[in-house]
């Protein structure tokens, strides 16, 4: 099987490629992104193509003619790109890569990275929606996920290829560029003064395992992949030994500016998570994908603040 991995330059895309490399039934792994992979890959082939160069990307994918696409080129605002850039790159990568793969005519499987932001947190919405809940996004990233799923679904329908939308909880880890992780690692973190809602996370290892496991199943539809348990903003901040700074009403506008200056801008979906929480029911994915034990949200929070000890070595040792 020849698999195209879009967004291979991101933390998640690189991990997906690493997990794919362990599978014997995958003959060829080819990745594209506008930045190189974050780790050394043994048998994956990477091509640095900017998704905004639509013609180049389309030609490359059509020539490749993949049997399957794992579409990880869904860019979270303020992870590596600003919100407008993230939306543009996501749209360009989705339309071009999936469209070209369909035109090549060999496509028989599609897995797309989506997010639980797709459910939204409007009034009257369940706090822990399962896959049957209607998509009603209330943030820009949620709308991006909805658009990605809609395009993938249309391509899958035309190609008679099953499409699995893996709706991930916010992916947080010590090496993952994520706006939530960056915010929680500030020394002083703004938190809602009058609420402490629960949110769930998923580790990058489990997220990549889920995306690859979905490739091996013929499940046609969405699946929530969510780490067990939850944490709250106050709790996550204290677990890292940081200081929570309670913010009320209009004070948030000032807080947004301050954290942006500190290098951790807050996109709308993270602001919503802090104010209203975010979780989803991931039981079905465990059943369908056979994922076994997932890392819990509290474990992810604790690991976020753990850094390997820096060992200083003398120049003479280094030269030796």
């Amino acid at each position, binding site marked *: 099987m020849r698999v195209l991995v879009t967004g291979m330059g991101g933390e998640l895309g690189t991990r997906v490629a690493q997990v794919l490399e362990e599978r014997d039934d995958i003959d060829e792994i080819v990745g594209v992104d506008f930045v190189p992979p974050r780790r050394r890959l043994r048998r994956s082939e990477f091509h640095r193509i900017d998704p905004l160069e639509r013609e180049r990307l389309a030609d490359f994918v059509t020539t490749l003619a993949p049997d399957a696409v794992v579409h990880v080129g869904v860019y979270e605002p303020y992870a590596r790109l600003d919100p407008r850039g993230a939306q543009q790159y996501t749209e360009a990568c989705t339309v071009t890569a999936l469209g070209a793969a369909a035109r090549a005519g060999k496509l028989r499987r599609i897995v797309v990275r989506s997010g639980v932001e797709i459910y939204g947190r409007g*009034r*009257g*919405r*369940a*706090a*822990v*929606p*399962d*896959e*049957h*809940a209607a998509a009603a996004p209330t943030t820009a990233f949620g709308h991006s996920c909805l658009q990605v*799923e*809609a395009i*993938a*679904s249309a391509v*899958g*329908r035309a190609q008679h290829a099953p*499409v699995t*939308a893996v709706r991930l909880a916010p992916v947080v880890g010590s090496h993952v560029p994520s706006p939530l992780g960056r915010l929680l690692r500030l020394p002083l973190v703004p938190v809602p003064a*009058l*609420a*402490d*809602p*629960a949110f*769930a996370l998923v580790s990058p290892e489990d997220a990549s395992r889920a995306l690859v496991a979905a490739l091996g199943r013929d499940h*046609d*539809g*969405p699946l929530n992949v*969510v*780490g*067990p*348990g*939850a*944490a*709250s903003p*106050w*709790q*996550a*901040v*204290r*677990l890292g030994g940081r200081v929570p700074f309670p913010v009320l009403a209009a004070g948030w506008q000032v807080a947004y500016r301050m954290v942006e200056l500190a290098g951790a801008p807050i996109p709308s979906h993270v602001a919503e998570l802090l104010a209203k*929480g975010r*979780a*989803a*029911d*991931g*039981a*079905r994915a*465990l*059943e369908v994908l056979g994922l076994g*034990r*997932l*890392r*819990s*949200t*509290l*474990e992810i929070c*604790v690991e976020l603040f753990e850094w390997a000890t820096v060992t200083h070595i003398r120049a003479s040792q280094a030269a030796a």
Partner: protein
Amino acid sequence: MGDRHPHPRVASRRVTPTSVGSLTFGLDDDRVSPPERPVSALRRRLDGRYPRDPFGLDPHLQDLVSPLFGLIARVEVEGGDHIPARGPGLLVSNRGLGLMEPAVLGITVRRERGRRLRIVGTPDMPVLGDALRALGGIPAYPDDVAALLRAGHLAAVPLGPTWLRTGVGTPPLELVLAATGFPVLPVAVAPGGPLGLPVRPWRVKVGEAIVTPGDPDDPLEAAELAEAARAGVRDLLRAHFPPG
């Protein structure tokens, strides 16, 4: 992904107890924890070393606050052994004003089984709603009730209010639909005094579980289950707490 990917309304009736995970700091989101010294409890709060579940429950906070409810309401329980010692279950009870009944049911489940009870019907609003969620409440959304039961928890759903306590109210059909396939227990609650004042102990009678085959897409089965639960509560009230 809409029409192309139809799947059952409720994904599965299989219980997948994953609500908290492995790192719990010695606390459980289903089992009540033993009392803790105030200093270590305070340190735990300040360090964030307590679990939360996705529904918003803060088990540590609940354990700290629950003894206060025990001081307000004394409770006498019959049939407590019908409450599942583990696994999911939906308690369907009568209610009058509806203010003290949730606390009384919570005390009953904690005392009889050492488990936590989630009260369905929390208002979905800022501040108050968040505080009640932390203590074990969830809004009356069928998806949340189904997810809670799939995670292996106990939940309580009240029948429609009967403020003069002249009978039993109507069952919440959508919520009972979410519980098809799980044990449903009728529960009768009688107040300790007029207007729920704690003159005498509150009295609680727990009936035997009603178990249905569990087709979540069959509205007839849900209606029958709801009616069976309502009749169960009515019979318990007539038999154990006759009016007058």
